[in-house]
């Protein structure tokens, strides 16, 4: 954490190297998250680039009381939402979710990826909350900060998401016991 703060201080002074080292550990996780929230892999890459540029430019507004990843994910969520709005206005519809970047990235898997089911079953925000909780290990308050929602909303929707995915997992286990997890 101390080295992270040192890198932030250096980046604030204009060191691209420090910033690159700072975000190095987060880039792949961010891209994986953005793949679930955009309509193409290229869009996910664009949003990642915009996110990193915004983070670098507005690094002075970062509050060290937050985790750096929380701040980064908040920017990413906002950028992805902005892109979705533009796409909705331009195209009218985002097209089929079945052929989205998430499905492309997990096409080679031998069993159904639960995140693909989550994408189908959960709303955007609940999906994001579940991802931040179970993949990024964020606390409820951090998730609330990223999604700009209250903690009670986050708790309730995490529970709903869990129940839906639990049901899906059980249904999958009962359909195909040999491939069931756990």
């Amino acid at each position, binding site marked *: 954490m101390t080295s992270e703060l040192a890198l932030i201080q250096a980046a604030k002074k204009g060191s691209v190297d420090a910033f690159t080292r700072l975000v190095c550990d987060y880039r792949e996780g961010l891209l994986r998250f953005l793949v679930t929230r955009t309509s193409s892999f290229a869009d996910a890459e664009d949003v990642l680039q915009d996110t990193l540029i915004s983070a670098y430019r507005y690094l002075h507004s970062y509050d060290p009381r937050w985790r750096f990843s929380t701040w980064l994910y908040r920017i990413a969520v906002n950028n992805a939402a902005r892109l979705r709005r533009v796409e909705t206005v331009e195209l009218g519809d985002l097209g089929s979710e079945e052929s989205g970047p998430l499905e492309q990235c997990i096409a080679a898997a031998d069993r159904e990826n639960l995140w693909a089911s989550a994408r189908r079953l959960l709303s955007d925000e609940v999906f994001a909350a579940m*991802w931040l909780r179970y*993949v990024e290990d964020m606390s409820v308050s951090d998730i609330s900060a990223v999604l700009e929602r209250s903690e009670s909303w986050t708790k309730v929707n995490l529970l709903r998401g869990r129940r839906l995915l*639990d049901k899906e997992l059980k249904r999958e286990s009962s359909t195909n016991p040999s491939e069931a*997890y756990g």
Partner: protein
Amino acid sequence: MDNLAERLRSDAERIDVTISPEMDNRIRASLTGIKPDAPRPPVRILRRFSWRWASSATGVAAALAVIVLINLRAPEPMPAMTEPAYTPFAMPSVALRAQTAVLTSPLEQEFEDLQSDLRKAEESLRRDLDTIF
């Protein structure tokens, strides 16, 4: 960690994404072209303070202007005749015109009867007083 959490984590790891060298270069190039913004001074707060002082000064100036205007106005000329001092209300004297009653005969009779009754009552009272004392 429960089954669902484990499954979600492992499935997330199975989402195959990598940052390509092209992407890496693209990001680095875009970062090189920009500089981090310096924190901005709290302009709004200062402006709010200056507005508050400005409005206070305007209020004081207006009050001073009103005072000066009132004091510089030419004094009104004194009236030649002043109102008389308060005098208690004097009851006007009313000329009473009393006329002597003209007694007619039935009234004269009644008056005599009353005088007779009065005499009888006086004699009776005197007798009683003599008896008692």
